[in-house]
């Protein structure tokens, strides 16, 4: 069916996502082998009617995207070299609509109007034209675009922020259990970024999915997340899982709060240490390259 992983009660699984000592080594067994992530383990509970928001932070090349793409089941990160990636209790076998993904570069289908972009997933499922367009219009409005004016536009007529709204609507219209976002706002200016953060918070309350959000911005990670994952330098290991208060105010306002800033500085200190200290500051010893 549409959601191959939305358990039918056969498995009483309370973890929506589980990484069991997952290691990904490219070119395994060759001299140019490169380990992106190493022995990463964590669990994310399936909170009913809520879903958890996980922000992932780490130095460049620490395998943040690798974690997302392993969850999405995309090559060449999928499958892991060792360990298991479980979604709703089952190993990930490939990509699917139950795990929606939003990329940093705006991947709107250039040959489709906004309406047809948003309706793409439903079209692939064989939903009738009138039904999928009705739903697509709903979602276009929900992500803050003008249904009348923008629905008929082509992506080349849109700004970066608008395109990312289209990408978000296109993903959320399918009601994925898990949403994977790979620096989705990385290319936006600060003002747009605040707006998109606010939008994401309100949408997330609506869809109640588990979100994995990779970002370079500590503020963004702390603001949006329930938990912040901090990865070590390459090869990436999961160093910290820091619980942070959920967003309860608009982004621009909350991010000025001294308590919020305190949290940001704490995490930034950790990251700074990672960037400057010699390798292995947090790496578990004993990993061998074969």
């Amino acid at each position: 069916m549409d959601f191959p992983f939305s358990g039918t009660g056969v498995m009483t699984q309370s973890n929506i996502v589980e990484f069991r000592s997952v290691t990904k080594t490219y070119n395994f067994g060759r001299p140019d082998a490169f380990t992106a992530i190493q022995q990463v383990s964590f669990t994310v509970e399936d909170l009913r009617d809520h879903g958890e928001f996980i922000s992932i932070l780490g130095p460049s090349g620490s395998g943040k995207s690798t974690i997302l793409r392993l969850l999405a089941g995309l090559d060449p990160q999928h499958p892991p070299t060792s360990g298991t990636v479980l979604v709703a209790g089952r190993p990930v076998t490939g990509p699917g609509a139950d795990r929606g993904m939003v990329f940093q570069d705006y991947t709107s289908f250039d040959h489709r109007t906004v309406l047809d972009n948003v309706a793409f997933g439903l079209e692939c499922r064989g939903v009738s034209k009138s039904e999928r367009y009705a739903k697509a219009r709903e979602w276009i409005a929900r992500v803050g675009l003008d249904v009348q004016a923008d629905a008929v536009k082509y992506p080349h007529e849109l700004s970066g922020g608008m395109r990312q709204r289209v990408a978000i609507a296109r993903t959320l219209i399918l009601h994925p259990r898990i949403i994977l976002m790979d620096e989705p706002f990385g290319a936006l200016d600060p003002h747009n970024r605040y707006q998109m953060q606010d939008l994401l918070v309100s949408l997330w309350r609506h869809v109640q999915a588990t979100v994995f959000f990779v970002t370079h911005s500590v503020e963004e990670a702390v603001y949006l997340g329930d938990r912040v994952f901090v990865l070590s330098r390459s090869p990436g290991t999961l160093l910290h899982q820091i619980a942070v208060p959920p967003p309860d105010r608009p982004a621009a306002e909350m991010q000025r709060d001294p308590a919020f800033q305190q949290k940001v500085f704490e995490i930034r200190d950790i990251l700074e240490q990672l960037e400057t200290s010699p390798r292995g500051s947090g790496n578990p010893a004993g990993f061998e390259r074969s």
Partner: protein
Amino acid sequence: MTNAEKPPGDLSGFPQASPGAVDPPVPEGSGVSELVEQSGRDWLPELRRPIPRWLTALAGIACVVICLGLWWWATAGAAEERLLLYSQLPSIRETIDYLPNLWDAAAPERHLWYNTKVSLGRVLLGFSLALCVGIPLGIAAGCFPVLQSALAPLILFGRNIPVAALTALVFALFGTGELQKVMFIFIACVAFILSDAISAVQEVGQRYVETALTLGASRLQIIVKVLVPLAMPMIFDSLRVLFGLAFGYIMLVEIIQEGQGAGGLGYLLNIARRRSRPEIMVIIVLTIPVVAWLIDQLLYAVQCLLFRWKYGREAEASVVLRFSRSILRLFWKNPDAVKSL
């Protein structure tokens, strides 16, 4: 705020209070004034600066006038004193005087327009055949590398066949009839169409495929809904170039023909040679590029209409599109209907 002052690990670009951030003072005599002076001293015209419309037209006209002047100068004077003899290059006057003969109703098979049509027909047939084979196969090979590897040797040979050798080959295989001409165009084009279609599909970013996958699209759906539509404009670009080439090549095989009345521009060239009529040659050399340009513009207009999502604004620059629109406006009562074309 310079990069050095940015806390590491934060690439957010958020405006932040950074008390130490003062712009470094510009040292005096640091070359700023030198630079200004230099740009005034440069004797070359401004690099890549767009020029006004009238200058564009003037430059083009100047080129034509110079070429015509050279032609006139080389063929002026009495028959024996000319730089180039009549048999080498007829003068402008002689060429213009001969023109009506190519519209003469008495000999329709010698008409310029009739023979252009015959040649075009052959090119269209052979080219369409090459499209029917090359595009589906190329798209499939662009999607599945196994097929691409299997086709690679064929493409390598097909792209590198010397055209002259190919004329001999199709002559041996198919004789001198219509089949020979159509197959010549087919063989000359199909490998190029194939390889261009393959690279067009491969050029489509993997991100689009990944996005479609995470939206639940099947592989067939990705081919039909994502890869093919996104590759089409690039395929069309190469088709325009190839069609122009094919139209130029057709004459090579039309020259080889036994018997009369097969028609085509190559046939007309044969007549020119047999009857020592160099005017025909000159006229063909001058008309064919114009016809080829018109066809290219027509195809470009079609392309703009087909891929509106890509050429939204560029479409306005299409000469043929604007021209045909203004023609339509003359006959159509409703100008908005024309505008939506």
